[in-house]
């Protein structure tokens, strides 16, 4: 059974149809990449998945359950975590605080317990802290634990954002352009990490990406979008050679 299936997803913004009936399926343990020119609707799919937008038509099924209309904050609890194209970290908090917020979906303490910081809250906090530390170790963020986000370079922020998503212990990780703004070396690291996330942590990855080297290196399957429609799907090699994809990127009458 597929981990996530999108059935005939469509959304209109006014008269513009950003997605016009997109269907795809993400199999467990897979890295699926969505590619496409600017404005193809890639990020829109992510925003539909994290329930920021309301789809005009279609269904999203995650783990056999329809998640098309669950509240936005419920998505993390179901096991979907995401990063953002333009980094949405908590700027004035430390890396540690950012990552601890990633544990929010696992919050089990109640308001009045926290007010008095009862032993139960303390024990839960220690558990969260330990869970966060494993992610810090996994992504080599040790030197930055107590740094404020505003003081960190862009590349590190990207990793911190991925770490925060991993702290929710998701089943499905959505990465929105993980390599944008990164140097060649940082992109290489990112490729290794995405592979490790899949093979070592067993987390399924759905990502939007433009860097075809990264895409070919880590993706099991690639879906190409243009003007809100799927124009090709298959392995990275197949999709890259597909005439419609070439046309979408380069233009022409083919």
């Amino acid at each position, binding site marked *: 059974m597929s981990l996530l299936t999108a059935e005939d997803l469509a959304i209109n913004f006014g008269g513009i149809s950003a997605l016009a009936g997109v269907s795809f399926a993400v199999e467990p343990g897979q890295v699926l990449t969505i590619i496409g020119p600017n404005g193809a609707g890639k990020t829109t799919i992510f925003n539909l998945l994290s329930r920021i937008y309301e789809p005009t038509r279609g269904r999203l099924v995650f783990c056999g359950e329809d998640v098309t209309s669950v509240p936005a904050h419920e998505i993390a609890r179901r096991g979907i975590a995401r990063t953002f194209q333009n980094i949405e970290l908590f700027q004035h*908090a430390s890396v540690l605080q950012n990552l601890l917020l990633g544990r929010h979906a696992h919050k089990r303490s109640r308001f009045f317990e926290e007010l008095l*910081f009862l032993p139960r809250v303390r024990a839960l906090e220690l558990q969260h802290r330990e869970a966060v530390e494993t992610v810090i170790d996994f992504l080599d963020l040790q030197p930055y634990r107590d740094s404020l986000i505003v003081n960190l370079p862009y590349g590190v922020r990207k990793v911190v954002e991925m770490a925060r998503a991993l702290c929710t212990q998701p089943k499905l990780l959505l990465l929105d352009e993980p390599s944008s703004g990164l140097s060649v070396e940082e992109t290489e690291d990112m490729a290794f990490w995405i592979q490790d996330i899949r093979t070592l942590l067993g987390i399924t990855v759905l990502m939007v990406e433009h860097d075809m080297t990264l895409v070919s290196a880590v993706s099991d399957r690639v879906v190409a979008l243009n003007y809100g429609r799927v124009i090709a799907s298959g392995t990275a090699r197949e999709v890259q050679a597909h005439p419609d994809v070439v046309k979408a990127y380069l233009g022409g009458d083919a």
Partner: protein
Amino acid sequence: MRFLFKTSYAQELGLFRDNVQRNWYVALFAALLVLPRVVPDYVGDISLVFIYGLCGLSLMVLAGYTGLVSLGHAAFLGVGAYAHVYFVHDLGLPWIVSAALACVLTAAAGVLVGLPALRMTGVYLTIATLAFALIIQEVFSRWDRVTGGLKGKPVDKPVLFGVSFAHDVAFYFLCLAFLIGALWLTANLLKAPTGRAWVAIRDSEIAAQSMGVNLALYKTMAFAYSAALMGLAGALFAHKIGFLAPDIFSVLLSIQLLLMVVVGGLGSLHGAVYGAVFVAILPVLISQARDSVPAWQGLDRFVKQPGLEPGLFGLILVLFILFEPLGIYGRWLKIKIYFSLFPLYKRATFRRQKTYMRSERLR
């Protein structure tokens, strides 16, 4: 230079950073215990600082940590004050019960304001709270039976468990105890998931939501908690001023409260207290400055006109936002860093930079 030697996760959960910091706070506490003996003439003023501290704490939770700026907090202070006095005097409830009920009532008022506020952000929310404050002030002056209307309402000295706190020194310790208690509770909340969720909402709603934070719930909680603290402050404030009248809880007071957290430093508990000290001292400074204005071209008469304070408060607010957005607490941090890095301090450490990365943010 000192550095932090962390050897266990539990160390991060303490109230204080390390033993040195704890000792400083113990010393401060001891100083506050003997203060009434040292400056007996100012005991009343210092208790007002403590009450302002509670107000600052309340607004700090909302504006400083959750990022929801309110210009209606004087109304919550009023609701707390009037409710408490009504419960104690008219219904004859015990002091503690009455203060607790006042907190619950203001928290409920906070939820009431918070609910429509969920759909508003930024300046629109501020305007909505301002409108709420004006409505509440009108209620204070019209609801004669409970509030005494425009005639006002006298307030007796507090009596807790049969012990009278009529004496200034006793009242000083009462206010101090409540301030420390409130600081402790708030510090606890802020290092727990709830506090983190608030900070997350302040910095990026969209990211908070996608990490599982229920925006509506946590914003409402911030409003309720902030209002409850204000209710407590109101109960003490009523005893402090001894007479309640609707025009006390004006928009000017709301601005003064906001001034407190901005000047103190948004986003820190220290800032709330520094701001309280500042706002309490400010009127004294203003009146002293007035007396020393020369009589040139009738300038002395000009500055002695009533109603100059609001303008001054506004000016100070603007100057702080422009030149020291981190407030007094931020300035204090800079001084500390200057000395701990001496002679290597560089101005660029705190230079504000323009960031261009947030242009395409989701709304």
